[in-house]
C-alpha cells in the first residue's frame, strides 16, 4: 500500500503598514508603480534598512508556533535574474533563519497529531508581471516589491490531504488572530507549496516533487490527491519519479512539469553584506510574549466556559477574527453575551449573506446594535421591530431611535389600541374566528399575525395574546 509523505512551504505576507526595507505603503490594489521608491525599485546605490515591525511579527509567529527564536539571525542574498526582481536578488534567510523547530497540533479524522515546523524565515516579495495579450507586451508593477513575507517550512509530517487542510486552517486562524497576515488567498497574501513523495507504509522515503501555483485550500487538497495518484501510477508501472517542480492547473485538475532538478537554479546564496545581523534580545522576546493575542481556540473555550455560548455558536463566531471582535464588543456593551451571540449567528450572518459581505470587511456600529439588544430585552420593541431596525443599522447605519419613531416600531402596549385592533381583525376574519372556536388551534396563530399587522408590527405579543383570548372566549368577537 502506497502512502504519501507531505511537507509544506507556506508564504505569508505580513500585515505591516510599510514595506520591509523602505517606508512605502503595503496597500493592496493601488495603481501600478505608485507605491515605489528608489529602495524597493532597486535603483543603483540604494541600501535596505529593516522595518522593525517585521522582526516583531516573525517572532510573534515563532512563539505561537512554539519555535526557538534565533537571537542572532542573518540575511542572505538569493541571486536570480528575472524582470519582476529589480535588484536581481531577493533578500532572504538561508543559513540562519529567525525561528526554528516549532510545532502545531492538528486534529484530523478524530486523531490528534503534532506537525513539526523546521523553520520560519523572513524575506521580501517580488513585483508582478502582467502579460498584456492585446499588445503582446509584458508590463511590470513594482508595488509588491519589498512587501515583507515569512516562509513557514514544515517537516514532511503529513500523510493525508485532510491533515494538510486541517493544518492550514489552524495556521490561518493563528495568523489572523495574531494580526500577522490577513490570509486573503485571492489577493495572494498567503500561498502554499507542497512537497510530496510516496512510500510503502512505514518504508523508505521516495523521490519528492514540489507543487506550485496552489490558489485555494481546496486546490491544495485536489493537488495532493492528484499527485499521490500520479506518483503511485508511475511507480506501479515500473517507472521512476523525477525530482522536479510542478505547476498545478486547478481548471484542468492536473499538474505540469516546470523544471527538473538538473535545470534548477543555482541561487548562489551568500550573507547580505548591506545588513547587520538581526539581533533579538530576551527583553524583546518577553515583550512580545506578554502581548500575545488570544487565539481562536482560546476564545472558543472562554465563550463556552465563561459565557455559556453553545459550542456551535462559538465556532461560528470565531470563524473569523473580525466576527469575534464584533461579538466581544457587543457582549460588553449590551451586557448580554447570549443575546449578542444570537444576534450574530442569526441576523448578522443572514445580512452578511444577503449583502455578500466577507467577514474581513464586516463593519457594524456596536453602540447602536447593543442599544437595540437592550431595547428588545426590556420590551421596548418586539422581535419584528428589532430585526427591522438591526437590518437598517447594518445597511444604512441609521439612528435607531429616529428609525423606530419614523416607522412606529415602538412596542404598542396600549390595551385600548390593542383591543380595538383585535375587534377589527375578528370582524374582518369571522371565518377564522369561528374556526378557532370550533377547536382549530391553528387559526389563533393566523389571528395573532393579523392583529400584529394591524398594529404595523409593533404590538406587544403578550398583550395581543391576552386580549385576543379574552375577546374570543367572551364571544364579543361576533358582530
Amino acid at each position, binding site marked *: 500500500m502506497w502512502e504519501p509523505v507531505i511537507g509544506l512551504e507556506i508564504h505569508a505576507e505580513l500585515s505591516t503598514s510599510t514595506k520591509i526595507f523602505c517606508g512605502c505603503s503595503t496597500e493592496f490594489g493601488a495603481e501600478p508603480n505608485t507605491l515605489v521608491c528608489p529602495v524597493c525599485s532597486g535603483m543603483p546605490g540604494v541600501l535596505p534598512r529593516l522595518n522593525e515591525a517585521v522582526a516583531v511579527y516573525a517572532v510573534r509567529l515563532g512563539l505561537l508556533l512554539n519555535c526557538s527564536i534565533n537571537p542572532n539571525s542573518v540575511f542572505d542574498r538569493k541571486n536570480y535574474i528575472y*524582470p519582476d526582481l529589480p535588484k536581481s536578488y531577493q533578500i532572504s534567510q538561508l543559513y540562519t533563519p529567525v525561528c526554528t523547530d516549532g510545532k502545531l497540533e492538528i486534529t484530523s479524522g478524530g486523531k490528534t497529531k503534532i506537525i513539526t515546523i523546521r523553520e520560519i524565515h523572513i524575506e521580501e516579495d517580488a513585483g508582478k508581471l502582467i502579460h498584456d495579450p492585446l499588445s503582446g507586451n509584458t508590463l511590470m508593477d513594482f508595488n509588491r516589491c519589498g512587501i515583507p513575507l515569512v516562509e513557514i517550512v514544515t517537516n514532511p509530517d503529513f500523510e493525508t490531504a485532510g491533515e494538510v487542510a486541517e493544518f492550514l486552517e489552524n495556521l490561518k486562524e493563528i495568523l489572523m488572530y495574531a494580526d500577522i497576515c490577513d490570509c486573503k488567498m485571492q489577493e495572494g497574501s498567503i500561498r502554499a507549496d507542497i512537497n510530496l513523495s510516496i512510500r510503502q507504509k512505514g518504508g523508505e522515503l521516495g523521490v519528492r516533487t514540489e507543487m506550485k501555483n496552489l490558489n485555494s485550500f481546496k486546490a491544495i487538497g485536489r493537488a495532493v490527491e492528484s499527485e499521490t495518484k500520479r506518483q503511485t501510477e508511475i511507480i506501479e508501472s515500473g517507472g521512476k519519479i523525477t525530482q522536479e517542480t510542478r505547476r498545478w492547473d486547478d481548471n484542468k485538475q492536473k499538474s505540469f512539469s516546470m523544471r527538473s532538478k538538473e535545470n534548477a537554479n*543555482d541561487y548562489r546564496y551568500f550573507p547580505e*553584506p548591506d545588513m547587520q545581523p538581526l539581533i533579538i534580545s530576551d527583553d524583546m522576546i518577553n515583550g512580545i510574549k506578554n502581548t500575545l493575542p488570544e487565539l481562536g481556540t482560546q476564545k472558543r473555550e472562554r465563550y463556552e466556559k465563561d459565557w455559556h455560548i453553545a459550542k456551535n455558536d462559538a465556532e461560528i463566531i470565531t470563524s473569523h477574527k473580525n466576527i469575534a471582535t464584533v461579538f466581544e464588543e457587543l457582549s460588553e456593551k449590551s451586557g448580554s453575551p447570549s443575546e449578542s451571540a444570537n444576534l450574530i449567528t442569526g441576523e448578522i450572518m443572514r445580512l452578511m449573506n444577503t449583502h455578500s459581505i466577507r467577514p474581513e470587511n464586516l463593519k457594524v456600529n456596536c453602540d447602536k446594535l447593543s442599544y437595540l439588544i437592550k431595547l428588545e430585552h426590556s420590551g421596548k420593541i418586539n422581535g419584528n421591530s428589532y430585526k427591522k431596525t438591526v437590518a437598517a443599522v447594518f445597511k444604512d447605519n441609521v439612528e435607531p431611535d429616529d428609525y423606530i419613531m419614523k416607522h412606529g416600531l415602538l412596542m404598542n402596549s396600549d390595551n385600548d389600541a390593542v383591543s380595538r385592533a383585535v375587534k377589527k381583525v375578528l370582524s374582518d376574519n369571522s371565518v377564522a374566528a369561528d374556526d378557532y372556536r370550533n377547536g382549530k388551534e391553528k387559526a389563533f396563530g393566523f389571528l395573532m399575525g393579523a392583529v400584529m399587522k394591524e398594529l404595523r408590527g409593533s404590538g406587544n405579543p403578550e398583550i395581543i395574546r391576552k386580549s385576543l383570548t379574552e375577546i374570543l372566549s367572551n364571544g364579543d368577537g361576533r358582530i
Partner: protein
Amino acid sequence: MFDITALELSKAIKNKKYSVTEVTEAYIEKIRGNNNKYNTFITISADRALRQAEAVQKRIDSGENISALAGVPVSLKDNISTLDIETTCASKMLKGYVPVYNATAADRLEQAGMIVLGKMNMDEFAMGGSSETGALGTVKNPWDINRVAGGSSGGSAAGVAAGEIPLSLGSDTGGSIRQPCSFCSVTGIKPTYGAVSRYGLIAYASSLDQIGPIGKNADDCAALLSVISGKDGMDGTCTLEKPFDFKSETQTQKGIRIGIPRNYFNKELDDDVGNAVINAAKELEKTGAELEEFDMPLMDYAVEAYYIIACAEASSNLSRYDGIKYGYRSQKAQTLPEVYRFSRSEGFGLEVKRRIMLGSFVLSSGYYDAFYKKALHARSLIKNAYDSLFGRYDIILSPVAPTTAYKIGENISDPLKMYMGDIYTVSVNLAGLPAISLPCGFDRNKMPVGFQLIGAAFSENTLINAARIYQLNTEWHKNKFNTKQVYKKCGNR
C-alpha cells in the same frame, strides 16, 4: 585662489575676498581650459553649480555660518549618485542614467554649502587600479601624461593634483582612494567602514566600499570627512554616531607608537618607494613617535581573500544591470534571455566581466565552501591580527603601492600583476580600518611616492593628527607638477 587650501579658500570667501560665484566660475574656466588634458571629468555640472553658488552666497551674506568649507568647489567620483546629474560609473552600461535621488554624502556636501562642479572619471564600476578600464578612456597623470593616475578614483586624485578642483570625493574598496593619491601626490582618507554612509554609492563590494575625501592636505581632507561622516537612517551599516570633529591641535607625536611591517619591504617593493617611506617614518620619529618593526601576519592571503570576497559581492551587486529598467539595452536582443546576454556582454567592459565571472564562480554550489567560505575565514583572521597589533601600536605605517605610477597600457593586460599592486591596501578594507595616504617623495623618474598610516577602527583623529604634524614639518604635499619646484625639505632623503 588655486594655490591656497580649501579651508583657506572658504575663509577668503567669508572675508569677502572672493564671491562664491567668482570661485565657481574660475574653477569651471580652469577645468574647461585644461580641455580634458587629463580626462578627469566625465560630467561638468556648470549651470547647476552656478545656481548653487548664488544660493550659498546669499546664505553667507545673511550671516549664516554654514561650514568650514562653505563656498568651496567639490567634485564626486562618478559612482556616487547625484540627483539630476548623470552618474555612469564610467560604464557604457549606465550611460544616460540620471539618478532620481542624491547619495547621502552628496546631500551633505550641499548642506555644507559646497559647490558640486561635476563627476570624476574612474575605473569602470571602480574595478581597477589604474583608471584605464572605464568606457570613457584613461585618466592621465598630471606629473607625466604618459603614465596612469592610479585607480579606481583616478579622476578625483588627478583632478586635485592638476588644480582643477580643491577637494573631491572618491571611494575605496581595496585601495581606490589611497593608491591614486600616492600616484598623483595628493592626500586622501579611506575612513573606517561604517563612518560614512554608503547610501547612493553605486556598490562594487558592499562590505568593503567606503566613500572618502581627496584633497591637497590632511586638514582639508579632515574638514571634508567631518562634513560627510556620521549616522544615516538610510544605511544600516553606517554606525558612527556623530560626525567626526577634528579639533586636536597637538604639535607632538610624543608617546605615539608606530609599527612598521618589516615584511612589506621585500623585493616586490621598488627601492625608491621603500626609501621614501622609511624617510617618512623617520620624520615622524623626529616629532616624538616611537618606531618598531614587526612582521605583518597573513600577508600572502590578503589579495586572494580580497578578490574572492569583492568579486563575489560584485557579481551580485551588478546583476541588477539587466537591460530592462535603466541603462544600456542591446538592440540585437529579441528574447528575454537575449536582452540579458547581449546587454550585459556589450554594456560591461572586460575587467568588470572578469570580476563578475570570478565572483559567480566562487559563490556557485560546490565552490562556495572551497573559495568564498575560506576567504571569509581568512578575512576574520586578518581582522583579528590587526586587532592584536593595535594593542601594541597606535598607527601602522606602510607603503601604499609597490611602485609609483606606471606607463599607460603597461600592466593592463596582466590582471594578476595589477591585482598584486593592491597588496598593501586591501587588508585595510578587509578589516574595515581607516587609513590616510599622503605624499612623501619622488622616485628616480620624478614620479610621486606616497605612504599610508593605518589605525584602529574609528581612530581617524589619531591618523589625521599624525598626518597634520608630518605635513607641518615637510613640504612634499606642496609640490606642484607644473612648477618643477622642489621644496627644500624634499632634500632630506
